[in-house]
């Protein structure tokens, strides 16, 4: 068959496989480009969500990450059941689906050669909610940083407290902050990176009290949910309400950093924070 009679149009199925549509500007982007930029739209700079492993991969020096306390798992202390079933079954399912043990991964590694302790939340696990095991891991990593004299960096991605663990979830807010406070006393840097989204009980605990608070463009950061606020005040909220840029403007964020610059920015901050050590 001569070349000019061949059908040049890619079949629909194949098209879907190689393109993705940006959620913000609706532009079609090559999947390859999307993954090369680590889910940042090359046209409008929309920053999509990435999972904890991808975050670790782009933040720490290659091969430097070592997990700690990876065996900590959630239980069902309240024997919580709602119309969709038991919390126990839900976590079993989530663990299987995400291949994660909890909504946070903790460990150590290096950023441009400098040793750090990190906690990286993963929104795929129960909306990144703060359960007892999440709090425990974040605290233990803070303790590790404290005992080993390393800076501590926490990447938050969370809808807030985990309702199904009731007040025990709420207590994790105080528990994690207790660990962070000890770092401050020892003069060790604590850097909080609030990624999309960081809300509720996570924003109202460790995520908001970094020595330096950093976020990515467009990230949703807030205490109360937009709907709750609209119901409370019966007013329309500004368009940029609770975005990274809104928080920067109101003085709660030190810098909004593009994903591609995140590693080097963190590296610089760590080097200042550890200048005395």
């Amino acid at each position: 068959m001569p070349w000019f009679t061949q059908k040049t149009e890619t079949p629909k199925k194949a098209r879907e496989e190689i393109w993705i549509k940006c959620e913000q500007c609706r532009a079609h982007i090559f999947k390859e480009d999307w993954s090369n930029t680590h889910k940042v739209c090359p046209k409008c700079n929309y920053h999509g969500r990435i999972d904890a492993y991808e975050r670790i991969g782009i933040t720490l020096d290659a091969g430097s990450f070592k997990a700690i306390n990876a065996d900590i798992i959630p239980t069902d202390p309240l024997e919580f059941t709602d119309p969709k079933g038991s919390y126990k079954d839900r976590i079993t399912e989530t663990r299987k689906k995400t291949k994660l043990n909890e909504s946070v991964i903790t460990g150590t590694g290096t950023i441009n050669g400098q040793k750090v302790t990190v906690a990286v939340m993963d929104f795929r696990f129960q909306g990144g909610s703060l359960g007892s095991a999440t709090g425990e891991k974040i605290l233990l990593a803070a303790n590790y940083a404290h005992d080993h004299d390393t800076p501590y960096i926490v990447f938050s991605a969370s809808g807030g407290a985990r309702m199904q663990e009731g007040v025990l979830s709420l207590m994790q807010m105080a528990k994690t902050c207790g660990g962070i406070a000890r770092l401050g006393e020892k003069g060790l840097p604590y850097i909080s990176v609030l990624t999309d989204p960081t809300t509720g009980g996570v924003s109202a605990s460790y995520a908001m009290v970094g020595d330096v608070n950093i976020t990515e463009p467009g990230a949703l950061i807030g205490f109360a949910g937009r709907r709750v606020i609209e119901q409370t005040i019966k007013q329309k909220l500004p368009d940029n309400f609770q975005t990274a840029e809104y928080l920067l403007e109101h003085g709660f964020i030190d810098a909004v950093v593009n994903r591609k610059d995140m590693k080097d920015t963190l590296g610089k901050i760590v080097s200042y924070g550890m200048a005395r050590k």
Partner: protein
Amino acid sequence: MESLLDFEKPVADLEAMIEKLKKLSVEQKGDFTEQITQLEKKLIEQKKTVYENLSPWHIVQIARFKERPLLQDFIPLICSDFVELHGDRHFSDDHAMVGGFATIGDTKVMLIGNNKGKSIKENVDRNFGQAKPDGYRKALRLMKLAERYGLPVVTLVDTQGAFPGIEGEERGQHEAIARNLLEMARLQVPIVSVVTGEGGSGGAIGVAVGDVVMMFQYSIYSVISPEGCAAILWRDGKEAPKAAEALKLTAPDLLRLGVIDEIIPEPAGGAHRNPQQAAASLKEAVLRHLKKLSTLPAKKLVDKRFEKFSAMGQFGRE
């Protein structure tokens, strides 16, 4: 007679009947002693049946009851020489959060607590006890002042939660609460916290990182309101009674979960039935713990507080 909660009706009916007979015996000079004694016996049983079988949802209603004693009722009942201190020194004086120097028994303390207000006018002025960031920052300012003067801190918690509104967001509700958690963790003076009514989520823990945390018998402490939880997980806020059950938010639940150290008893039916008695129990418990805590050196105190909160939560190992 106090206003009533629905489930209290059988008790109220009996009380009304006794009252009527007593009145009759005076007015008509009749002798109803026997009937009255019988009814009073029945009343005791009825009270037992009603108040010993309260569901979590009943307890939520008692905790929120409009006649439940508030901070403003407790202040004159448990302390003397109260000197109220105002303002966060940054933005405003949040009337939903009250604080000041107080003397409980012979002990000088910094007393801080939520105040919902009684009349509608007061409710509005105090934003129904829902503090904005300014309220949490005022509380922190007073706690740091207490630390400087070597005064223990007593916090009384009674709020549905921190105010979820636009001013809260723009002035950093998250940051204000988080900062309190961070600072309270290392405060060099004893902290005793008591949930007296509603312990509503971040708004409650933001002033409740205590060396000792107690709850009144019919108070609640929860990560989310039963209505909020029901709206999300049951997709219907009206299922709040079920959510209240599932959330394990009553004082005995929290004691069992290791979140609180002690339950302060209330008069049958709730503190509103005898505020003086409730206040006396509150005062006794607070003083007892303050005395114990006062013997600890600051470093030990803070280490123990860290250990206490570090131990909270339940998880497993794979």
